[in-house]
Structure formats: structure tokens, C-alpha cells
């Protein structure tokens, strides 16, 4: 296990960490005059900027939020219960639908849990392909995060939409590559017990490199949008500051944690796949505000592009899967002690806590650790004291995926 913490951090100098005072999410409202001072506004569950079906009940004093209560669960599909009824071979396509902006990482995490319990080693080429796909998926996912955040700031009829459309355009390039590899646009079912299901087609890497070049060229514009547009900077800088301690307590990892100064990245700190063979630069910002959360995603996309190029250049030869292909639903048999496995998804630590049954064909209990649920739980701590317009900006910068929150 690599313990190398020496990789470089990109810390922008313009802000220092000033932890804001902690907000009590259960604030007592009785000091306000009933029906006089406060007003309840329900944001959602169907609202243009709640990123799916999430509902926040805001108690407003004028336009200033006094209390925010989040209500997830409008997309609770009982995935964990469903998985208990399915066999291991059947579960991967279900998990694709959880984080529908990064299905690759969802299915990889589950299969890694199986492999850990069963003690199966994935061949190096299989791991390498998983690493590559995870990085490409991170690019695609962050692009949407950037675009939707800009749309939340700029409005559906306005300048923010430009960025939204452009990032979707760039994402299509990645999706085309995935479609060529797996035959599906974004529910891939390509990761399986013991490795990968689909091998890289010949000449696939050339197309991906071309797409990466294009994305990198255009990332300049998105970075500029975050720094050179004064209105955008005014809307983001110093808004929704999340201190490091609170971020740790809330379990925020990934871009949100790193924007708040937590120097932690599972790819570097606890390497899985082939990450121990790569030098990963982990950007860390200390400001913890919306702008930092935007910047960190832009920087991570650039880093992922660099890693993807490196990975594409050196794909090793060999088998992609150490197990026989899945033939029947009960072909995967995994017995052993329960395990918790986590990988670094685009939104943070994505984990699977898995207890297999005695027979070893089904999970007895499977708990998915969704980074987005931790992210949306932040609203109760971040929104009070902010303006109504800031609520939208903060929620956009958290980039939650409701399929993953509610499962």
C-alpha cells in the first residue's frame, strides 16, 4: 500500500481557511412571531434547480434563510432491498442506475467488494481498463457538474445555459467512446466479477485521445468562466463556506472535501485498480466556498485528462477477466466475511458494505455508501444565513445525484 503523500497540491492563494460559525440545523423558531416574521418556501420536489427530485423546506426571514430542512426520498427505489433478492451476477446493471452520471464507478465498486470477499485478483489489463474508464467517467461526470452549476447561476434563459450546452456537447464525446466499447450510452454493465466484460476495440484509443484533446482545449473556456466573469465570481466567492471540521464530520470526501481543505483522495492514499502505478496530483483548495468547489472540478478534469492520456499510452497485454464469463445467474459464488470497500467516485468516497449469504450467491445485506447523500445533508448546515439565490448556487455546487441519494 502506497503511503506517498508527496504528490503536489495545487493550492490557489487567494483565500485562506476561515471556518464559519456552526449552524444549528434544529434552530428553535419560537422566538419569531408566528405568522409574522417567517415564511415557509418549499423548494421542490419538482423545481428547476434541485437537480432531480429533492425538496428543501426553507424558512425565510425576508429573503434570508433561517432554517432549511431537506427531504430526500422522492426517488427511493429500494435498490438495497432489490439487491437482496437478486444474485450477484444480476446486480451490476441495477447499480448502474444509482449514480446515473457515473455508472462506471458504481459497478466497479460493487465488483471490487465481491473480489475482496472472495479473494480474487483482477488481471492487470482488467485493472488498467477499469482505471481508464473510471477516469473518463470522472471527466464526463464533472463536466455535467460544471454545466449544471453554471445553469443554476445563470438561469435556463441566459448565459449559464451556454456552458450547460457546451459541457453536454463535450460529454457526448466521452459517451461515444463508451458506446463504442460497451454498446450502451450510459448503463454499461461492463464491469464484472473478476474483471471486465468488454475489451478495448482496436483503434479505440485514437478516438479517445482526440476527444480528450478537444475537451482539454475547451476546458480553458470553462476555467475562464469561473475566474474571468466578475458576475460569476461575485455569485460564488465566499458563498456557502464549508469548514474543514464540519466537512469531515459530515463525511464529505471527494471534490467537496478537497475544496474545504481535506487533503484526502482514495486514489492516492489507498490505491486500488492501477492507481499505485500512477503519479496523481490531488488539487486541494482551502476556501470551501462555491467557487472553490467549481475550481476543484475544473482542475480535476484536467488531472483526469492527463491520467487518461498516460493510461491510454500504456495499456498492458493480457486477459481482462480472471473468472469465466457469467453464464447463469448463480455463476458467481462469493463466500466470506462481510467487507467494506470504497473507491473514489466523482463525488467522493463511494463504498459498498456487503454481507454475502451463506450460500454465496446473493447479498444478505448490501449497503451502498453514497457520497451524494452526505453532500445533500450539508444543506441543513450551509443554507441558514444565506440568501434565497445563494441556496440555488450552493445546491448546484454540491452536485448531488438523486438516484444515489435515495437509492
Amino acid at each position, binding site marked *: 500500500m502506497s503511503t506517498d503523500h508527496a504528490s503536489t497540491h495545487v493550492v490557489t492563494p487567494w483565500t485562506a481557511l476561515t471556518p464559519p460559525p456552526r449552524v444549528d440545523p*434544529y434552530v*428553535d*423558531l*419560537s422566538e*419569531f412571531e*408566528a*405568522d409574522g416574521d*417567517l*415564511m*415557509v*418556501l*418549499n*423548494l*421542490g*420536489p*419538482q*423545481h*428547476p434547480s434541485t437537480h*432531480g*427530485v429533492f*425538496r428543501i*423546506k426553507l*424558512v425565510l426571514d425576508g429573503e434570508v434563510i433561517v432554517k432549511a430542512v431537506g427531504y430526500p*426520498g*422522492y*426517488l*427511493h*427505489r*429500494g435498490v438495497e*432491498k*432489490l439487491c437482496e433478492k437478486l444474485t450477484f451476477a444480476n446486480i451490476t446493471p*441495477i447499480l448502474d*442506475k444509482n449514480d*446515473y*452520471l457515473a455508472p462506471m464507478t458504481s459497478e466497479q465498486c460493487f465488483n471490487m467488494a465481491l473480489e475482496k470477499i472472495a479473494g480474487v485478483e483482477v488481471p492487470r489489463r482488467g485493472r488498467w481498463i477499469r482505471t481508464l474508464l473510471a477516469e473518463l467517467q470522472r471527466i464526463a461526470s464533472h463536466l*455535467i457538474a460544471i454545466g449544471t452549476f453554471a445553469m443554476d447561476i445563470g438561469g*435556463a434563459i441566459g448565459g449559464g445555459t451556454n456552458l*450547460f*450546452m*457546451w459541457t*453536454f*456537447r463535450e*460529454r*457526448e464525446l466521452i459517451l461515444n467512446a463508451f458506446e463504442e466499447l460497451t454498446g450502451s*450510452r*450510459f*448503463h454499461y454493465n461492463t464491469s464484472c466479477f473478476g474483471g471486465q466484460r468488454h475489451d478495448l476495440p482496436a483503434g479505440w484509443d485514437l478516438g479517445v485521445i482526440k476527444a480528450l484533446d478537444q475537451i482539454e482545449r475547451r476546458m480553458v473556456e470553462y476555467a475562464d468562466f469561473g475566474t474571468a466573469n466578475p458576475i460569476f465570481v461575485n455569485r460564488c466567492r465566499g458563498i456557502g463556506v464549508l469548514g474543514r471540521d464540519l466537512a469531515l464530520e459530515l463525511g464529505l470526501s471527494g471534490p467537496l472535501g478537497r475544496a474545504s481543505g481535506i487533503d484526502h483522495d482514495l486514489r492516492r492514499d489507498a490505491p486500488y485498480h492501477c492507481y499505485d502505478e500512477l503519479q496523481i496530483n490531488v488539487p486541494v483548495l482551502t476556501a470551501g466556498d462555491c467557487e472553490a468547489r467549481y475550481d476543484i472540478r475544473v482542475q480535476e478534469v484536467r488531472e483526469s485528462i492527463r491520467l487518461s492520456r498516460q493510461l491510454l499510452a500504456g495499456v498492458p497485454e493480457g486477459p481482462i477477466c480472471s473468472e469465466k464469463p457469467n453464464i447463469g445467474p448463480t455463476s458467481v459464488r462469493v463466500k466470506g466475511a462481510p467487507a467494506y470497500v470504497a473507491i473514489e467516485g466523482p463525488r467522493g468516497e463511494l463504498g459498498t458494505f456487503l454481507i454475502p449469504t451463506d450460500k454465496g450467491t446473493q447479498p444478505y445485506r448490501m449497503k451502498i455508501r453514497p457520497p451524494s447523500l452526505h453532500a445533500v445533508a450539508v444543506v441543513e448546515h450551509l443554507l441558514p444565513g444565506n440568501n434565497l439565490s445563494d441556496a440555488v448556487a450552493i445546491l448546484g455546487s454540491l452536485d448531488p445525484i*438523486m*438516484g444515489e441519494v*435515495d437509492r
Partner: protein
Amino acid sequence: MAVTQDDPQTDAVTPDAAPTDAAPTDAEAASFAEAQALASAVLGGVAAPTALDRDSRSYSNPLLDKVISVPGLDVAVATVERLLDWASSNSFFIFPMATSCCGIEFMAAAASRVDLDRMGAIIRPTPRQCDVMVVAGTITVKMAPRVRKLWDQMPEPKWCVAMGSCAISGDFYRDIYSVVPGVDTFIPVDVYVPGCPPNPEELMKGLKRLQVKIGMQRDGTWQRSGMPAEARPETKSLKLGGLLRIGDPDRAAGLSDAQRDASRSLGFDGAEHRGADEDHGNLFDPPESPPASQAAAAELEATHES
């Protein structure tokens, strides 16, 4: 002032916006009629609000009726109707009922590669101004009353597109305790776009099919091309716990009483339902400790004492 009934965000209105909660008086009814008269005078006969049973899909078109009531113009009914259909089918204002994965493909359809805007379809966030509700994604039991409410808030004529297998039948979530097995159990669906999720191009194709359908129907029923009413495309009748789909021959059009009550229980359909939303009541009270933990704590104490 009467109680707030319709609100685009299903949970949005509480009595704060309205001065009082009271039943409408005669004076108000009179003022309403007056306002209608005034508005129709000012606006030159634009459709006045009518009390509709929204469950029935028969919608008389006031504008068309007005036009054909002019002597001599009644011969032009077909032309006028075709014109209206042309306008409706080329100017879709879409309400995005986007809940999950299909919502992303819906956004991709609105983005640059497919671009729904080229056929005149734009996305409006409020149901009041929308013609087409695209249900993209799984609808859960918790969400279903809201979806129904938003559908009710859309003005006629309106259409519904079920995008993706979750919205069509619930897909592999259909047996889950919290998932509604298909949106057509409580909303009449006009076009089904299959796929998990369907590609953006498929959605556009579905909207094209909706355009064809609009051209062939009037007042919610098939009129033109000699197509019989029973030819309306429906999914195979799927039975789950006696839940019939709208359009199944055994089921009357519209909601069951229980579904209607459930969708009204959100508190937007009359004074008696006002306070029924989950916790507007204790807004100004300090948070209570929940009954479950209280009971459990009491139970614990009891066991320890014994």
C-alpha cells in the same frame, strides 16, 4: 379570499401568501364572473376559465367554438382545426418531470446534439404554461401524488409522454414496495418512448409521433383518418395488485377515489385539506423528540427497571 388551490410547486403555498382561509363568498363569485366578462371583453374572447373535470380528457376548445360560431365561418371548421393542430404540434412547451436517469437523457435531448428546440419544443419550469409532460424516470409512491398534482395543474389541451421503461411499467423496480408500476396508472399517457434510458433521438421520435397523434384526434378522441377509438396505442394490460391502467377496458377513465384523495391530501384542493401537509403545523414549535425513540426509550427503561 378563497383558499389557494393550485400551485406549480406542489408544496409551495402555505397560507402566508393568502390573507385568510375562508370559503368563497357570493360577492367573490360575482366578482369572478365580472372579471371573466371584463377579461373576455378586453382580450377579445380569449378562453374564459372553465370548471373542468380534469380527469376526463374531453376538452372543448373555446377558441374553436368561438370561431365557428361566427356565421359563415362554420364551413371552415376543418381548416381552423387543422391550423390549431398545426400550431399545437409545432410549439411544444415541455414540462420536465425528470426524476432519474432518463432525466439526463432528456437534458441531452435538449442540448446541442439533438436539440429539441429545432422542432419548436422548449422547456418551461412551470406546469401552467406547458403542453407536454415528459415523465422521465421512476415515479415513487412518495412522488406520485405530486406528479398527479402537477399534471392537474397543466391547462388543456395537454399530453403526456412516458419516457423510459421505469415510467412505462416500472421496469425492474416494478415489484419494489415504493415504486409506482408505470405512470399510466394515474396519468393518461399518449406516447410511450421505450428504452432504459431511450436515446435522445428516441425522445425526439416520440415527440414526432405525438405530433402525428395530435393531428388525428380532437377533444381527446380519435377523429380523423377513420381510425377507431380502440386503436389508440396502449401497453399490454399489466395487472399488479388489481391496479388497472388508465385505458384498460375494465377501468373507468380517471383516478380512483383513493388516488384522488391521496393527491389532494397534499393540501391544495380545498380548505378541509389545508393543514394536512406533513409538518407545517409544528413549524413554530421547538422540535419534538420523535415518538418512536420515545417509545423505545420508555421500553428500554421498563426493561432495565424490571
